């Protein structure tokens, strides 16, 4: 008998527009000083008539106490890393230490305008400088820009830097292609296309790794770069990385490292030593900054010496003579700016604090534990005899692994989607599903290092239960989830008849 276990609050929470308007208490915005009111004309004299707003915006007129409840209710209907296990492959949902949040709220950080002169923000520039030094060392790179706001943004930055390099060497027009393995994250080809490149996809071998022959066939003098993740999205380390680097470099191309999987290798090996020319980090993955329900993150880009001139400006520097820090804008070959200002500083501070908290040994330990947890969980789930491990099943994975649910689907008709929804019922967040594309009915699982064996065992138990249910009580999966804030959502309706705002909703109501 399946007793319904509530794992999340269920509120029919009204939209903020549907909350009852109140007159008391009101939010008091600061009063305009009387001396100013006296000496300045009325608002409608200060703004050109045509530009004066006629109708006020229809914002809610509610009190703080109503909103406090409203947002508490919403939070109680939201799953986070602090709730329970969150094994999203490729996302590295590790615990976000609270001290990093608190430190980032220091007013000397939060109330500082980016355009303040260097002598008033020595501490902030020093943080940028020291963060960069640490990232350079971790990755084996010469310099790192902290400007990009996200991993994909870092990818674009890295590819634009590579592009600038080729143009500076009179090969810009000639090199029009970027090579990407078929296992790559969607941002890779999207980035290449945004930078104006044609994407050349190479198929992975049966062991899941880059096919050297396919790569040799794909490189030419049109090759600008190869974009690679190592370990790849299957969690497998590209053992032939040196040969891969040689093939690409011999053709005059450069090697780009997608740092999404950096959590697997810290202290063990470095992209710079593997032959990569440019890499991006995901601070919101490897460096424990909060994901924020989708962002902000930060995607610093590290490069080898020959690419340094093209990095976005400014770069933080330390002047030994005066003992001061400054932002160096004197970078004539720089691609310029990729974002307003200097980077997602508040995110960078958290990553900085994280690295200082872990230290050299701690970061190495992070990767070790992440890899141990992943391999442990992989073996446990394979014992269920429901999912298979495609591509080199005998090779250990690194920090994540991808299971195939194709056989289970053929046997029981239950898809990976249904499995994911049932996991929600059992109190877990589902892993990444249907990615990478080279695995059918894929489940991509990354436990991270901040999980106990107990949690991993519980998750494996849940998967075992689900495997049983697939065979004996499939309706439990097809109807999942039932224990979450809402049951399965009609995504077809959402795409067919998009209602993307309160305004569109009201328009629909009047149409009816």
């Amino acid at each position, binding site marked *: 008998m399946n007793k319904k276990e509530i794992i999340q609050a269920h509120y029919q929470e009204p939209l903020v527009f549907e909350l009852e308007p109140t007159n008391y208490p009101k939010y008091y915005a600061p009063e305009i000083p009387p001396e100013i009111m006296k000496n300045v004309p009325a608002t409608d004299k200060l703004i050109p008539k045509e530009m004066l707003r006629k109708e006020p915006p229809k914002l809610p007129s509610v009190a703080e106490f109503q909103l406090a409840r409203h947002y508490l209710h919403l939070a109680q209907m939201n799953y986070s890393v602090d709730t329970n296990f969150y094994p999203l492959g490729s996302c590295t949902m590790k615990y976000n230490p609270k001290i990093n949040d608190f430190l980032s709220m220091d007013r000397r950080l939060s109330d500082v305008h980016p355009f303040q002169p260097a002598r008033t923000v020595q501490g902030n520039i020093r943080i940028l400088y020291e963060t960069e030094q640490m990232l350079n060392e971790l990755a084996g790179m010469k310099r790192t820009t902290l400007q990009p706001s996200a991993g994909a943004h870092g990818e674009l930055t890295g590819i634009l830097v590579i592009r600038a390099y080729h143009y500076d060497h009179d090969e810009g027009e000639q090199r029009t292609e970027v090579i990407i393995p078929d296992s790559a994250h969607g941002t890779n080809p999207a980035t290449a296309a945004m930078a104006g490149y044609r994407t050349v996809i190479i198929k992975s071998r049966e062991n899941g790794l880059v096919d050297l022959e396919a790569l040799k066939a794909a490189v030419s003098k049109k090759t600008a770069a190869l974009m690679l993740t190592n370990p790849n999205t299957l969690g497998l380390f590209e053992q032939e990385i040196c040969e891969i680097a040689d093939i690409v470099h011999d053709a005059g191309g450069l090697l780009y490292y997608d740092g999404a999987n950096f959590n697997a290798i810290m202290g063990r090996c470095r992209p710079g030593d593997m032959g990569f020319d440019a890499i991006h980090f995901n601070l919101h993955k490897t460096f424990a900054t909060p994901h924020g329900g989708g962002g902000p993150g930060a995607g610093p880009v590290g490069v080898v010496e020959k690419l340094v001139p093209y990095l976005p400006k400014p770069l933080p520097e330390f002047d030994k003579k005066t003992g001061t820090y400054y932002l160096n804008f004197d970078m004539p070959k720089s691609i310029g700016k990729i974002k307003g200002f200097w980077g997602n500083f508040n995110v960078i501070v958290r990553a900085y604090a994280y690295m200082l908290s872990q230290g050299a040994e701690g970061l190495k330990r992070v990767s070790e534990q992440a890899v141990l947890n992943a391999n442990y969980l992989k073996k446990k789930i394979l014992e269920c005899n429901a999912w298979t491990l495609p591509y080199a099943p005998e090779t250990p994975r690194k920090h994540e692994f991808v299971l195939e649910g194709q056989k289970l689907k053929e046997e029981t008709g239950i898809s990976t989607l249904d499995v994911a929804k049932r996991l929600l019922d059992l109190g877990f967040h589902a892993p990444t599903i*249907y990615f990478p594309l080279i695995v059918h009915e894929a489940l991509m699982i990354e436990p991270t290092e901040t999980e106990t064996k107990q949690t991993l065992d519980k998750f494996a138990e849940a998967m075992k239960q689900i495997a049983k249910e697939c065979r004996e009580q499939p309706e439990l999966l097809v109807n999942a989830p039932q224990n979450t804030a809402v049951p399965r959502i009609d*995504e*077809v309706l*959402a*795409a*067919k008849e998009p209602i993307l705002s309160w305004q569109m909703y009201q328009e629909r109501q009047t149409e009816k």
Partner: protein
Amino acid sequence: MKLDKDARYAKTHEWARKEGDLIVVGVSDFAQSLLKDVVYVELPTEGTVFQKGDKAADIESVKAVEELKAPVSGEVVAVNNALEDSAEAINEDPYGEGWFMKIKPSKIEEFDELLSPEEYEKYVATLEH
């Protein structure tokens, strides 16, 4: 898998059927079963001229976008505007109400180069494993 006996098929899962001197085009039942619920289509404008194999329309479901490739070369003389509000017709009646466009063929021999219903059925069987 449903088939229209009067249509011929492309390996990219479009069907084509003669209607007078025009060719009516849509996607096969097999194609719609892979796409699942279609939510939106982007149809070409009347008058557009395609070569066989050109992308002629975009078909969007929740999790994927597929292209309809022109099975024959020619000029688009009519499009099924009803699909704007009822894209589900593609799933429910792929060979009837789910038609996409009517082409005035420039090279009618291309029609015969397409697969017969039996050939298409055999071909689809090789894809499913």
